[in-house]
């Protein structure tokens, strides 16, 4: 794999909606009204029900994993939840390389990561650090 500053990694995209949220609620035991009920979402000041922050956090891991492969290592991920993840919009997880360094048998890569809607509204901006085996790196 090649790594360059400014490089955007392949995106990870999923449609937001109850098909995804209910599955995530089931595995994370996260049955919160704002994620299940439009009225509850509206009472909390949003246009309707919205997806879990933890699911967007998982999508940020998925976009990193599909780039670094099974032998890569996610070291750090951070994000803030700034805008609600609303039903019917595609959630796009993205990442951009902001720096990398050679450390022994690994290349450590710092990235800017975020989720956004298909309209370009950033929902969860954040950062990540990953490691890829040097053997996988093509300078």
């Amino acid at each position: 794999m090649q790594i360059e500053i400014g490089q955007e990694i392949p995106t990870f995209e999923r449609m937001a909606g109850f098909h995804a949220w209910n599955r995530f609620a089931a595995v994370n035991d996260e049955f919160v009204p704002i994620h299940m009920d439009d009225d509850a979402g509206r009472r909390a000041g949003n246009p309707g029900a919205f997806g879990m922050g933890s699911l967007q956090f998982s999508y940020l891991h998925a976009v990193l994993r599909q780039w670094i492969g099974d032998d890569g290592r996610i070291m750090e991920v951070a994000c803030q939840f700034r805008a609600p993840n609303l039903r019917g919009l595609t959630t796009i997880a993205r990442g951009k390389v902001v720096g990398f360094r050679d450390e022994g048998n690994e290349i450590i890569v710092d990235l800017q990561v975020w989720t956004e809607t298909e309209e370009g509204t950033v929902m969860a901006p954040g950062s990540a650090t990953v490691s890829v085996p040097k053997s996988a790196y093509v300078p």
Partner: protein
Amino acid sequence: MPKSWISDDMRALVGRTFGSRRSSAPISLSDVRKWAIAIYYPEVPPRLFWDEEYAATTSHGGVVAPEEFNPFAWFTAEGPVMAPTWEGPIRDSGPESAFGVKGPDTTFILNGGMEVSYGVRMKPGDVITSSETTLLDYQERQSRLGLMLITRSETTWTNQNDQMVKVTRGIGIRY
């Protein structure tokens, strides 16, 4: 709307630990597979999370859990986890109640974000222990939804070999 949600009693809690150490039940392969399917649906998740034969050929030597997997959902070593019903005011949902301190009269709670550093991977059979949680700080910010109280806290997970699995700094928002 108050000028501040943060009382002097709350301010005195910063830096203190709350909650209790708790351990998961042993992680099951089935739970790892279901988590991965939920995240990747409608596409098939990576084989590393469900195919034991394939996973044995990787550097992990077997199936591992996605880094963000939660082994404390539904059931822990202590028994069933009965999640809150989320009905009525959420006044006692913050860390203050653990100290017997009156919390803010907020109505809503949100996950504001998180910062996680990872150590060793979780895998089927592992028993994960969560430390007590440290209250790092309170902050406040005006938003379109009113005055928001931001609470940051830190929790460490270790496995049965006392290896660090992850350190999570959580950001809770109440308003």
